[in-house]
């Protein structure tokens, strides 16, 4: 095994991506993603990676460049955050629809307005329906390793879909942690070269993203859905192969943490799970039968894996970093549907604990666990510890 180094998360990701040998990288700076693309451009400029780094005028341009590069048969990579991801979104739907195995990173950050540069998951969740595989890292090691897994899964001919690695803005991009970069020789062996099935070629022309009449369009769109679902076993297979080759269990659909015999299960994704695991340990010591199910693969939604991980629970709390304004949570209803469709009537409570980088300390997690343990009936998705004293009169008097 290689050596652990103390690396900044974003820089570690840049070096892990370089070892996957993308042939085209296009990115536009946006906090907190910037260090990924900055470091990659340095790596290319230093001649350490033989790739074309395309400087673009916007994230729309970045996504369009990687779409074109991938359609021409290149391994292509981009990274973004927040408004940048939303500006890419029109192109991202096209990348998924054209079944191009682009890999991108999202350094998760809140969406304006109000303006915030800090972490929540609403940017990635806003594009959850477009057909991009979404993986969520808990620490910098996973953020690096998930890129290798993402390229392998995306380019698998049973899949051919874009894949996005999510890492929490600042909490993972700007933290310095001991990280082992994926070994270059192992990466080369694991990934090989990308060989496109179909590609743009002037000598053998074709139309990508062609016009379809109503008699065909639905089938074209359904194929994206079907490919997403069929990627689930491929993600598991590639994650197993990654663990065998690199010795780290960084992939997989989800992680159960002391959840096998748990009566109360929390569900979360991303770096917040580190805090939750500490609280779970403390409460286990105090006799509470509590555990965590961490979603590592959010799209495609691993219905069967989630269902079997939760089937033995008496109560469930979904701890989210997003919300669907005017409805409820984003992950919470998916958990409810997963259980309901199997006839499992386990009470599920949904909490938005963080938007725009609000800290949720261990005592907040403890409070959520204690409240659901008491059997508190939740009437609606709750914005946890909302500061009511900051709210103005609902109808302003003029």
């Amino acid at each position, binding site marked *: 095994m290689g050596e652990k180094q103390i690396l900044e998360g974003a820089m570690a990701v840049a070096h892990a991506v370089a070892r996957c040998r993308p042939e085209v990288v296009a990115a536009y700076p946006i906090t907190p993603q910037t260090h990924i693309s900055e470091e990659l451009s340095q790596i290319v400029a230093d001649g350490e990676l033989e790739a074309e780094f395309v400087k673009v005028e916007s994230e729309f341009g970045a996504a369009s460049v990687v779409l074109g590069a991938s359609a021409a048969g290149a391994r292509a990579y981009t990274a973004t955050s927040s408004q940048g991801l939303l500006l890419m979104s029109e192109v991202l739907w096209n990348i998924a629809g054209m079944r191009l195995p682009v890999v991108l990173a999202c350094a998760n950050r809140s969406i304006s307005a109000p303006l915030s540069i800090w972490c929540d998951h609403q940017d990635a969740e806003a594009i959850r329906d477009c057909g991009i595989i979404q993986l969520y890292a808990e620490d910098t090691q996973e953020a690096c390793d998930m890129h290798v897994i993402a390229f392998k899964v995306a380019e698998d001919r049973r899949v051919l879909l874009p894949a996005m690695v999510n890492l929490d803005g600042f909490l993972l991009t700007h933290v310095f942690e001991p990280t082992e970069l994926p070994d270059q020789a192992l990466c080369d062996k694991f990934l090989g070269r990308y060989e496109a099935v179909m590609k743009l070629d002037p000598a*053998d022309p*074709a139309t990508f993203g062609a016009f379809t009449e109503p008699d065909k369009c639905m089938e*074209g769109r359904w194929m994206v859905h079907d490919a997403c679902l069929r990627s689930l076993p491929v993600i598991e297979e590639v994650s197993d192969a990654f663990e065998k080759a690199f010795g780290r269990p960084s992939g997989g659909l989800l992680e159960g943490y002391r959840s096998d015999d748990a009566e109360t299960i929390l569900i979360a994704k991303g770096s917040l799970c580190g805090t939750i695991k500490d609280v779970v340990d403390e409460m286990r010591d105090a006799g509470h039968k509590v555990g965590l199910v961490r979603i590592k693969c959010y799209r495609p939604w691993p219905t069967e894996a989630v269902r079997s991980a939760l089937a033995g629970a008496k109560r469930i709390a979904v701890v989210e970093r997003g919300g669907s304004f005017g409805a409820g949570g984003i992950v919470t209803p998916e958990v409810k549907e997963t259980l309901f469709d199997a006839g499992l009537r386990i009470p599920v409570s949904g909490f938005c604990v963080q938007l725009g980088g609000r800290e949720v300390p261990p005592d907040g997690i403890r409070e959520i666990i204690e409240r659901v343990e008491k059997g508190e009936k939740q009437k609606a998705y709750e914005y946890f510890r909302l500061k009511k004293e900051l709210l103005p009169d609902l109808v302003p008097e003029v």
Partner: protein
Amino acid sequence: MMQKLLSTEKLSIGCVAPPGGSVENKTGAWRSMRPVFKQAECIGCRACELACPEGCVFGDAKKKQFDFDPDYCKGCGICATECPVDDIDMVMEEK
């Protein structure tokens, strides 16, 4: 290799299509109005031909005869609006 993978019967992965597909797609089916080239007052100025955003008005300026391609005309009426001698009428497309 590409042409081998593309079939006209079935969709391909990513809905990649053979080149030239846009010509086969007869977009004139969307039309609710159609132009009638009366060919009575025409002065052969070609305004209708040049103004057509679809490039589907054609004719002969010397003979002062113009007409449209019903396969692609969307019935936007720009030709009729631009005609300086009011020689094109727009009428309801009825089937």
